[in-house]
C-alpha cells in the first residue's frame, strides 16, 4: 500500500471518529467543533518541541576536524613520497 494511502486512511478514521463524536454529543458540541484545531495546534507544538530538543542535543564533533587534519597530513606525506602529486591546484 502506498504510504500516502496509509496516511489518508488514518485521517479518514480520525475524521469518522470526530463526526461520530459530533453526532453522539457525549462531549458538548461546541468543544467537539474545536477538536480539529486543538489537534493541529498540538501537532505543531510537538513538531516545534522536537526541533528544539533536537537542536539542543545536536551532536557535534570538533575533535574530528582535528583528527581529519592529522589524517590529511599523514596522507600527503605518504603520497608525495610515493609519486602522487598532492598539490591542490
Amino acid at each position, binding site marked *: 500500500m502506498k*504510504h500516502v494511502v496509509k496516511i489518508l486512511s488514518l485521517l479518514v478514521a480520525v475524521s469518522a471518529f470526530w463526526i461520530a463524536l459530533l453526532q453522539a454529543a457525549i462531549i458538548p458540541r461546541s468543544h467537539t467543533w474545536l477538536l480539529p484545531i486543538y489537534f493541529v495546534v498540538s501537532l505543531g507544538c510537538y513538531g516545534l518541541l522536537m526541533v528544539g530538543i533536537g*537542536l539542543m542535543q545536536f551532536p*557535534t564533533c570538533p575533535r*574530528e576536524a582535528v583528527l*581529519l587534519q592529522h589524517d590529511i597530513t599523514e596522507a600527503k606525506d605518504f*603520497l608525495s613520497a*610515493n609519486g*602522487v602529486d*598532492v598539490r*591542490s591546484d
Partner: protein
Amino acid sequence: MADEKENIGEKKYKYSIIIPTFNERLNIAIIVYLIFKHLRDVDFEIIVVDDGSPDGTQDIVKQLQQLYGEDRILLRARAKKLGLGTAYIHGLKYATGDFVVIMDADLSHHPKYLPSFIKKQLETNASIVTGTRYVKDGGVHGWNLMRKLTSRGANVLAQTLLWPGVSDLTGSFRLYKKCVLEDVISSCVSKGYVFQMEMIVRASRKGYQIEEVPITFVDRVFGTSKLGGSEIVEYLKGLVYLLLTT
C-alpha cells in the same frame, strides 16, 4: 583490535566503493590512502566516477593506480557533469563486489567508518547499512546554528510525513548489497539530496532491512555554499513527491 581484523579478513566478500568526483584532485588521493589504511584485510575495489574534472583529478587517479594497482582502483570517467544518480548507475556497471559502498569524495565521509559498516552488515545481514550523523556517537562539525536548525527542521518534517525508519535521510554514506542497490536505484528519479532520500525511502517501502551506524561528518565546504530559499523549496517539493509516490 587483532580480533576485529581477523573477523573482517576471514569473510570472502568483496566490496566495491563507488566515489563520484568533480574537481577533487587532492581529496581523492587522501581518501584512497585512508581507505587502504582502514581496510587492510578486506577485499575491495575503488571505482572513481569522474565527470571530466578540469583540475586534473583523473591524472591523480592514474598516479594512484600506479601506486596501488589498476585492479584495486578503477577509473570510469564520464565526459561532463551528469549528476549523482547516474554516476552511481555508471559505477555499478563495473562493480564486481558483493556489496557496494557509496561515499562522497570531499572527506566529509571518513573511510575509518568503513569497518563499522562492514561489521554491522555481517552481524545483521542487513540489505543496507546507512551512516547517521544525528545519533549520540555521530555528529557534525562545521555547521552554524542556522544550518543545524534547517537540518533539524527538515528532518522532523520528513520523519512526520514519511515515517522512513532511519534517522538520517539525506546522508549519502551507505553500504548496499549490490543486488539491492541495483533494484532500488532503477526506481529513483530525483536529483541531488532528494535522490538520497528517495533511495532510502523506496528501500524502506520495499521492505529491505536497513541498519544504521553512527558517523561523524566534517563539513569543510559549507561555508562556501549558503542554504538559500530555493534549496528549501526544492526540498519541500521533494518531500511532497516522496509522500505521494512511495
